[in-house]
């Protein structure tokens, strides 16, 4: 692996100037490497990060093909590595014009990495450098503990898709001052609604009373407010105290919880395992934002490579070559999902809406189709808005907010269905739905979404780790549950339990009926490497 030559680097630097002028912002330092096919052989198992720790599974064929992305919080072959400085990879025989276009694409990715809030946890990291330190750490541990290091890596990786990324990221900027006090929260959220069960209008009355008090006397408001509450509900204080004793923050992040609380890891001789777990957890956390911004990130980069390269005089003479390459990447496919195409069009759609002032209440309250169609305030806010979009949005929020019927109609999008024509032995693809709701659902269903599993602290002790899977309409892959529990039992050093929900399919009696699904709560228990399962 070697750096690009000085001449090409100069081209990159020129691209940076133009990209900055257009409003993109990124660190000045970047590294560009030429990669050969042989380099790819080494890099690809390591998610393109040359310094990632060694692990034997990297050398074996792992479950191939479809659904793979569900297992791993990363995209295996990225051109740009979100590190400081950012690293990107190039073929050694690209023509200059192609490199210019790719440089713009890369710079937009770097801009996205360094400005999108989802990546906030990676902003201070030289990840490649950190990975190198981790790699050395693991190599050192391996010389001391041999293959046991690999077991700890393996067992930690078995829950590296449940690392509490969103909790982590939301805590980064959370302003606790905005929270009402514990007593107020309890009174309105729990006491009135669940304990006394007063009707809704009385709750609103109470809220109004509280707000009025605050307006007149901010300092004293709460004590004044509660003096009346206590006379009306003498039991309040006792209930509140009981509640706050019981209520502790539930840990969502199973990996971290085990790291902090496992009696097995507490032992002096096992403390090195925690280091390994940290490496696995941090590596996973690092990749989390990337897989949740695939569409918006590729859309953003495609938007800018197109805009910047077409206004760059160096395109002269290569317009056709560019058009061909660009279309190959960003054209909507007749059948198939393409993150470049969908992302680019959504960003353009938002820009267009904002330019007309349509992202506003004034527009939303219109009910006449005609009035909506003609609504154009010519605000020119498009650019500004998409920069905001790039700062705050992820794939999910982008799709959920902006895939509308207008968007679907504008680009002639539809959900494809397929059925088999038995007589001719061909699969037929057909237009299944052109409804925005169906299209949106299809997009969202195809996004990365690991299960949400947390530790139930009340039921957890040194002898028993009790986890709860929060059911979201899909059961866990059952075949993997026992093996995963086995690793967790090792890390916890005792019994481990998982509460989850199975879907039991009831075959319909009549072939025309749809099968019925029954949800069944089950509890897996592993003790001494024996897994049992019981209904709850």
């Amino acid at each position, binding site marked *: 692996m070697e750096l690009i030559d000085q001449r090409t680097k100069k081209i990159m630097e020129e691209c940076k100037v133009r990209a900055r002028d257009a409003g993109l912002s990124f660190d000045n330092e970047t590294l560009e490497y030429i990669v050969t*096919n042989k380099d790819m*052989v080494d890099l690809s198992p390591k998610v393109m990060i040359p310094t990632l720790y060694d692990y034997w*599974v990297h050398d074996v064929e792992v479950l191939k093909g479809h659904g793979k992305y569900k297992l791993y919080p990363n995209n295996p*072959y990225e*051109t740009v590595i979100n590190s400081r400085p950012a690293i990107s990879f190039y073929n050694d025989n690209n023509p200059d014009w192609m490199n210019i276009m790719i440089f713009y694409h890369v710079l937009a990715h770097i801009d996205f990495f360094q400005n999108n809030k989802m990546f906030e946890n990676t902003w201070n990291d030289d990840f490649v450098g950190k990975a190198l330190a981790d790699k050395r750490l693991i190599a050192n541990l391996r010389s001391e503990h041999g293959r046991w290091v690999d077991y700890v890596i393996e067992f930690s990786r078995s829950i590296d898709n449940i690392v509490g990324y969103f909790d982590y990221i939301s805590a980064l900027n959370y302003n606790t001052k905005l929270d009402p006090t514990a007593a107020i929260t309890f009174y309105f959220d729990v006491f009135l609604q669940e304990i006394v069960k007063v009707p809704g209008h009385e709750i609103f009355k109470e809220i109004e009373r509280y707000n009025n008090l605050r307006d007149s006397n901010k300092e004293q408001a709460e004590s004044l407010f509660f003096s009346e509450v206590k006379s009306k509900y003498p039991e309040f204080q006792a209930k509140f105290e009981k509640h706050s004793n019981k209520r502790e923050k539930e840990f969502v992040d199973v990996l971290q919880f085990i790291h902090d609380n496992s009696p097995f890891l507490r032992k002096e001789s096992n403390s090195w395992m925690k280091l390994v777990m940290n490496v696995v957890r941090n590596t996973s956390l690092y990749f989390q934002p990337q897989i949740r911004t695939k569409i918006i990130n590729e859309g953003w980069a495609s938007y800018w490579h197109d805009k910047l390269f077409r206004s760059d005089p160096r395109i002269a003479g290569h317009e056709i070559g560019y058009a061909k390459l660009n279309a190959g990447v960003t054209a909507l*496919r*007749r059948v198939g999902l393409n993150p470049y195409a969908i992302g680019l069009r959504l960003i353009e759609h938002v820009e267009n809406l904002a330019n007309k002032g349509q992202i506003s209440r004034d527009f939303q309250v219109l009910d006449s189709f005609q009035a909506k169609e003609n609504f154009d305030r010519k605000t020119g806010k498009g650019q500004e808005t998409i920069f905001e979009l790039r700062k705050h949005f992820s794939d999910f929020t982008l799709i959920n907010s902006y895939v509308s019927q207008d968007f679907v109609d504008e680009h002639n999008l539809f959900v494809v269905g397929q059925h088999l024509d038995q007589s001719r032995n061909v*699969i037929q693809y*057909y237009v299944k*739905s052109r409804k925005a709701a169906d299209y949106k659902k299809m997009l969202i269903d195809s996004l990365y979404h690991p299960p949400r599993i947390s530790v139930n602290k009340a039921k957890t002790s040194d002898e028993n780790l009790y986890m709860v899977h929060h059911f979201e309409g899909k059961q866990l892959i059952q075949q993997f549950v026992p093996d995963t529990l086995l690793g967790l039992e090792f890390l916890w050093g005792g019994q481990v339990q998982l509460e989850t929900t199975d879907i039991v399919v009831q075959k319909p009696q009549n072939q025309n009926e749809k099968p019925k699904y029954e949800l069944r709560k089950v509890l897996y228990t592993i003790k001494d490497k024996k897994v049992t399962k019981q209904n709850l």
Partner: protein
Amino acid sequence: MSKYLNHIFEKYLNRELSEQDKAVILNEMQACKNLEAIEQEYNKASSKTSFYDFHDLLAFQQFIPPGMDLISALKTLDELLEQDKKREEDGFPRRIRLGKLVRPSKTDKGKVVVVPSTTEPKFYHDDSVTEEEESGEGGAGEGEEGDVIGEQQAQPQPGEGEGQGAGEGDSSDHDVTSEAYDLGKIITEKFSLPNLKDKGKKRSFTKYTYDLTDRNRGFGQILDKKATLRRLVKTNIMLGRIKQNEPFSPDNMLLNPQDMVFRILSREKDFETQAVVFFLRDYSGSMQGDPTQLVTTQHLLIYSWLMYQYQNNVVTRFILHDTEAKEVPDFYTYYSSQVAGGTRVAPAFKLMNKIVEEEQLQVDYNIYVFYGTDGDDWDSDGKELIETLKQTLTFANRLGITVAKNAWTPDSKTTTVEKNIIDSGLLKERADLLKMDAMVATGVSEERIIEGIKKLVS
């Protein structure tokens, strides 16, 4: 097809079927009609693209992600197994999985490949349960809802491909055989299956001869070209003279004398083919899905294990049946044939008996029979079947029956086949010859399948 099924159905109706049996038959006939939907399910996995399949390296610079590291591709199973053995010593289950069978992609000739693979178990969502209808994918362009916008050739039906002549059949059989041999190696090491030899064979399998089979590097009597080439390729990969996805010329390869592998004279066991193994399975409509999966997997394991244990010296025959029985030429066809019509068990055994008789196999061979079914039999009184089985047991050294029950069959309920066999008393009468193992086919672990084999050959 359905006309024919109706015909048979009516024939059985005349015999005063119980309501339950009628339901079973109707269920199966419906299953055949629903083949279309099932086929669709079968085909859909292959073509769908996901957002995460795309990446810049491919999109802009046409980097093809490398398949596998060349050196590790040359790694033998033994090295992987060695590593896995250590896991077991440390008290964790093995991670290298039994080989998977990969279907052909381009040619219509079937090739079975064993790929050692591993999985990383994690908690993650299972889409397969509730998504009865395919969730669809994205598309763009003209067309009303319901319009067909394109077609694609579905996977060729096995057996329909061209050139299934004898020559081709043989070569693909060879492929299965050598791969199955590798697979068999894993199984015996992993599960220590009992040797058939201990089962009271008529003659000993072993006598010794001297042959050029031991390998030696550097010198010897006869050059082992295949092994030499392997080493040669490996050396040249390491020297960077062979690169992935690039053509190379043998002229550029360096030959290290140490890479030459020779065979030298050694004492060898000499095997004579003395056993015929018949594999029979039900491929009727109700077998769709899990039961077929279970039976074919189990039979693959048995087959592989035989290949290994007897060094490719076992003769194998394959018979499929729905309402009719047919013999198929090789394991691949046996393994991959799609489900067909209704179920009558007796014809399969009849066909086998006929083959044995015509070829007088019982004179020279030990005869083993493995049969897999979901337990349905339209011929519910089973008289015909029991008669046929009795005849089979006159010559068979072992008849092993696996009943892979469908998920909708209650655990406790004995299926028609089970019932008939139990009622016949053959299980007790000929306990040394006849073994039966029943399980619900859904979600069966590899261990359970192996346990089943143990039971069948115990």
